[in-house]
């Protein structure tokens, strides 16, 4: 009862605080012209695009100046390593060993001292040379940091079993999840005989995706799992493991489906072969699109708080943003679960022994 009252009080404070703090501002916003409204909308669109992109510096709160430059590594007739602070957020030309580089649409091009970029009329791409780019970007840094965190967490968790059957503090939280992956995902889908050798990969991919999805919900502003290159690599690893651990009957079911008439076998073979590549492709798109869609919706709703001048609408959108944030927490887990589940399903298909035929 007391908790309910407190909650309502808190909600009312949150919803009404904009009225109090910005009452004087409301008068000035009334007089704004259409021009500034368009500028706000364009600003929000730019902000969302910027949020979804990878970047060459790690900015936590751009406005507050929490920024760290990251190393740029280019291979262009020799190795070029320099700090991304030389670009000044893509505004100036960076010089390294007598060569000049500039950022155009978040890609690095070789240019001259003035930083000229000429656009090809037909392809709409710059004509300048694009050097091989091995830079440690924001996403790569995030992956390094979170891999290290996951490694340290699970190292201490695993070590605590040396002392006895009860895990340490963080282990008590992680143990049910590990058992969940084993008993709900690996065992029923792969089978009692083979599931053990896939557990390492399944646990890694589950916790990697889950942790990085959750990291995307923090104000750190990192979006690793909504980068298609990351999901592509995860899907490729699943694809390779499936192909290289598969048995004879897996390929038999692809090229010469048992139990159906011969004309049907000929029709099924190309479809099944296509399916081999569509499965990891769907894995890649699903994770990428789900996380991108989630981020776009969240950023758009936050953007709407700036578009609307009506404080009731703003309060409503604040509530909606909070609700969707909680939904995104569920999606973060669900996507990790589905990726792991489908991966296990494909592994199961690769090692299944069909004695029943």
């Amino acid at each position, binding site marked *: 009862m007391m908790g309910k009252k407190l909650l309502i009080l808190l909600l009312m404070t949150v919803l009404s605080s904009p009225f109090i703090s910005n009452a004087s501002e409301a008068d000035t916003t009334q007089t704004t012209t259409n021009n500034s409204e368009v500028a706000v909308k364009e600003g929000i669109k730019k902000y969302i695009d910027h949020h979804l992109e990878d970047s060459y510096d790690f900015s936590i709160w751009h406005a507050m100046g929490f920024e760290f430059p990251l190393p740029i590594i280019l291979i262009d007739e020799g190795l070029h390593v320099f700090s991304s602070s030389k670009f000044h957020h893509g505004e100036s030309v960076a010089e390294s060993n007598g060569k000049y580089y500039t950022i155009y649409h978040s890609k690095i091009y070789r240019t001259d001292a003035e930083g000229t970029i000429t656009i090809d009329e037909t392809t709409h791409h710059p004509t300048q040379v694009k050097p091989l780019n091995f830079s440690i970007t924001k996403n790569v840094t995030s992956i390094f940091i979170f891999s290290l965190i996951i490694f340290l967490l699970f190292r201490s968790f695993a070590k605590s079993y040396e002392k006895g059957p009860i895990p340490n503090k963080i282990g008590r939280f992680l143990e049910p999840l590990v058992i969940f992956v084993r008993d*709900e995902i690996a065992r*029923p889908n792969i089978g009692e005989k083979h599931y053990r050798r896939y557990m390492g990969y399944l646990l890694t991919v589950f916790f990697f995706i889950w942790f990085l999805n959750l990291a995307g919900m923090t104000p750190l502003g990192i979006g690793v799992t909504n980068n298609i290159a990351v999901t592509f690599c995860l899907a490729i690893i699943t694809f390779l493991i499936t192909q290289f651990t598969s048995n004879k009957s897996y390929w038999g079911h692809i090229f010469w489906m048992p139990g159906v008439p011969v004309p049907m076998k000929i029709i099924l073979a190309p479809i099944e072969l296509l399916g081999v590549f569509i499965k990891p492709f*769907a894995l890649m*798109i*699903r994770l990428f*699109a*789900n996380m991108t869609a989630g981020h776009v919706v969240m950023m758009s709703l936050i953007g709407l708080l700036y578009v609307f001048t009506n404080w009731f609408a703003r309060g409503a959108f604040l509530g909606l943003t909070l609700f969707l944030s909680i939904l995104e927490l569920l999606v973060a887990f*669900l996507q990790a*679960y*589905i990726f792991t*589940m*489908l991966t296990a*399903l494909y592994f199961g298909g690769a090692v299944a022994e069909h004695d029943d035929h």
Partner: protein
Amino acid sequence: MEIPAIVGAGLVVIGAGIGIGRIGGSAMEAIARQPEATNKIQTAMLIAAALIEGIGFAALFAVG
């Protein structure tokens, strides 16, 4: 008159929505009939929904 590609993507998404809706509804009914099989039904439901969702996203991806 040329129909924009995004209309096709919209149709695919409508189809995917109907599909996922039917899966959810059927799973609901199945759980109501057999509450002891909830876990198995939920797993099967999530897999089927994820597979359909993939097609919806693929359509949006091909357009955008």
